[in-house]
């Protein structure tokens, strides 16, 4: 074994549980943006672990590439796609969750016990010797001698990926965008004239006219079409019942 390195042990036992908790939180939080932030935290802790293990270059690259570029890309796509019902944690395939958790406990247990039983037959060497001329110099030496062919192949892969992303993301309309006049005609021909003059606007007049409360119909029921679909999917919709005239406390409190 290597000599006892107390600062590293303290760092490990503080950050490792935090990274495990963050990755568990990634599975459990409802909103995709929160999972993205937790994943960014896990990646930062991994970068610290790399630097602690004498992999200075990889630690920096981890922060620049993963938390910098990849997570920004994820957040960007999250904003582009928006929130929908797939964020919900309800189980659609019945029995999937218990099976997944059982399999994971088995798999993880097998993994951990395997590492616990595996013996390398010798002590850990450490990277003092390999990093004698500096970590970046050592890596460069390897990259441009032994691994020069994979390095070239990877560059080709990067170019292909960039081209592929451009081809996939490029979007050409196959049908012309409907004009306002065509939309209006379609509304009148849709069978019901209920939405012909446009959908009802949200809010309960004079009580709470924010966009997150459905309008009340004349019979007192809520009009679901008056709320934006995004707000509904995000679960940010309020019940309009609490703003009905009968149930509102009418006593006026004087505010000073």
């Amino acid at each position: 074994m290597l000599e006892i390195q107390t600062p590293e042990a303290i760092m490990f036992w503080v950050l490792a549980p935090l990274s495990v908790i963050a990755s568990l939180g990634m599975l459990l939080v409802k909103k995709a943006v929160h999972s993205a932030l937790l994943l960014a935290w896990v990646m930062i802790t991994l970068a610290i672990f790399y630097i602690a293990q004498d992999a200075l270059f990889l630690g920096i690259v981890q922060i620049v590439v993963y938390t910098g570029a990849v997570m920004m890309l994820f957040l960007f796509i999250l904003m582009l796609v928006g929130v929908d019902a797939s964020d919900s944690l309800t189980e659609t395939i019945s029995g999937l969750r218990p099976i997944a958790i059982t399999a994971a406990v088995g798999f993880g247990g097998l993994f951990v016990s395997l590492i616990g039983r595996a013996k390398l037959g010798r002590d850990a060497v450490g990277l003092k010797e390999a990093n004698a001329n500096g970590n970046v110099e050592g890596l460069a030496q390897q990259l441009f001698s032994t691994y020069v062919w994979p390095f070239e192949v990877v560059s080709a892969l990067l170019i292909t990926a960039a081209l592929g992303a451009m081809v996939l993301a490029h979007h050409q309309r196959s049908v012309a965008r409907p004009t306002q006049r065509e939309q209006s005609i379609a509304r009148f021909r849709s069978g019901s004239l209920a939405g012909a003059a446009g959908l009802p606007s949200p809010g309960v007049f004079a009580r709470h006219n924010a966009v997150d409360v459905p309008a009340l119909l004349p019979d007192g029921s809520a009009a679901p079409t008056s709320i934006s679909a995004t707000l509904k999917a995000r679960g940010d919709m309020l019940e309009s019942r609490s703003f009905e005239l009968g149930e509102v406390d009418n006593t006026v409190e004087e505010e000073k």
Partner: protein
Amino acid sequence: MNPYNYLYLAALLFTIGAVGVVVRRNAIVVFMCVELMLNAANLTLVTFSRINGTLDGQVVAFFTMVVAACEVVVGLAIIVTIYRSRRSASVDDASLLRR
């Protein structure tokens, strides 16, 4: 400190990522869990590089990072394309081939 502790941590993170791939329904979150699994594998490579005293593990981890970056770019482009045509980022909704 015993560097094998990093291997245990990597195994845990890999397992958690695998559960996320199976359990979550939002394609983007599934993708992030795949990234977590790749990162756990990278931690293993870096740790073995330290245990063996050679830099080969770090070089392979470097290649993994490059491949992961490519994979994210193409994968997210696919998700955006599916979202454009089906208006949903749920992995359960993409079942066109089943019917």
